[in-house]
């Protein structure tokens, strides 16, 4: 494991260093410029959190979609496949780099960047940033961002085994196509169950709930049909523990089956 990781880092350290510098630089410079030029201070930490998640999702997916870039070139692909390490070792290395590696770097980078922004704001405007985003004390819903992140990361890792060039764009398109297909199947099933007349297919969250609009012409009321609780628990379980491992497993077998 150590050998392949070492080899991977040797081959990619320039790209990783540049990416890290770019991410850290953009975050810090933008924040500092907003304070110095726009004189528009960040009052609360929650003002910065959306930027954190946008960066996390965009950066994480972009980074993950590059995982198997080698397979897009014959020369690099031969080097990648012929290197005497198991396909599992190669997969795990890329998996660790794109998950733990990226998350660790990104969070550390955000932390340092935040400290710099905080110091600059204090020095330039004499205003503190209120620490109102208590993730560790109250992680309830906030942690779902990370569950969704992990599932998307797994989808992009799988996408990287299918598309070796423009993987990021192609995976986004595939995710949209997949989501559209799910929506179509749901619309068809809802129409079969509830009929066509009240456009139930429009007023539903696929495989989760259907809104039935009734009454009129003066007053209307909505009846909400929700999936049973056990199914909701299953969805929750699947989001947390099933979907990502399934996608990772498929990605591993896809990698094993790559031909050059």
């Amino acid at each position, binding site marked *: 494991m150590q*050998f392949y990781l*070492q*080899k991977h880092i*040797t*081959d990619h350290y*320039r790209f990783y260093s540049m990416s890290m510098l770019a991410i850290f630089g953009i975050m810090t410079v933008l924040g500092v410029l907003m304070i110095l030029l726009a004189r528009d201070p960040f009052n609360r930490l929650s003002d910065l959190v959306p930027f954190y998640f946008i960066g996390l999702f965009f950066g994480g997916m972009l980074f993950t979609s590059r995982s198997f870039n080698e397979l897009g*070139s*014959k*020369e*690099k692909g*031969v*080097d990648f*496949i*012929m*290197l*005497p*390490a*198991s*396909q599992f*070792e190669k997969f795990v290395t890329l998996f660790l780099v794109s998950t733990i590696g990226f998350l660790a770097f990104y969070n550390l980078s955000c932390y340092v960047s935040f400290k710099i922004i905080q110091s600059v704001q204090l020095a330039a405007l004499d205003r503190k940033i209120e620490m109102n985003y208590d993730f560790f004390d109250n992680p309830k819903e906030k942690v779902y961002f990370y569950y969704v992140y992990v599932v998307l990361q797994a989808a992009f890792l799988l996408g990287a085994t299918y598309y070796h060039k423009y993987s990021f764009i192609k995976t986004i398109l595939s995710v949209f196509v997949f989501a559209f297909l799910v929506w179509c199947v749901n619309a068809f099933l809802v129409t079969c169950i509830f009929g066509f007349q009240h456009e139930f297919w429009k007023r539903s969250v696929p495989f989760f709930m259907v809104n039935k609009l009734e009454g009129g012409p003066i007053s209307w009321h909505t009846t909400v049909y929700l999936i049973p609780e056990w199914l909701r628990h299953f969805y929750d379980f699947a989001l947390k523990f099933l979907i990502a491992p399934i996608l990772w497993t498929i990605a591993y077998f896809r990698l*094993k*089956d790559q*031909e*050059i």
Partner: protein
Amino acid sequence: MINIQSLTFSYRKNKPLFENLQLRLEAGHIYGLLGKNGAGKSTLLKQMAGLLFPDSGTCEVMGYPSAKRQPAFLREIFLVPEEFYLPKVSVKRYVGTYAPFYPNFDEGAFYKYLKEFEIPKDQQLTEMSYGQKKKVLISFALATNTKVLIMDEPTNGLDIPSKSQFRKVIAAAVSEEKCIVISTHQVRDLDNLIDSIVIIDGHKIIFREDVQTVTDKLSFKTVSRIEESTDILFADSNLRGHTIITRNAGNEQSKIDMELLFNAILTNHKPIQEIFN
């Protein structure tokens, strides 16, 4: 060492590149894999290396199914492709990173081969010319001491002195345990190196003989007047006269002309094959 049984493979449906291909290659030989453009030489090498999978049949190398790419298999096979990748690092760093994957890697031999090829040790790989990079890769391939060494057009991009250095280096590296397979268009570059010939054409291996058997059974000559010779199997005219292949009836020893043999087999396969059967 390399055992291919009933291999069928196609890139596109209904257009098979190989059909029921059989080939067995043994250790202790340097095989020259010859064929026309598009005959499937590189594809066959990729099958051996596990880069492509058979549609049907088997391809085993040292008893390992090559398609499984087990680490134990990968540790004992090295492929020098025609187009290859080398990272943006120095020669030393390259060795430091890649060599630990090969348990029998001989660093001393690697630097000896580099010296033979006149490649500076401290240069960045990306600053080298294509030919220099190829020489680094060939040196590395030989130093890994893998039991199977596969080279696809290794002399492409090498200058004239380098080609003779290449022959020297390969000849020195071959041993009873190693099987070297070289695919090439430039058969003259490897005339004195190859000891067994494999010719691929029309989805099949049409000729597979060792050089000694070929020279025992065939005679290669240059004559000024073609009419003076009898029993000619193939003739090619050039400025010096006519180079011909005849049946070696008198047990004379002649030097094999690989290019002539290749052309002869492609154009006049049947009578030549009958001599070897």
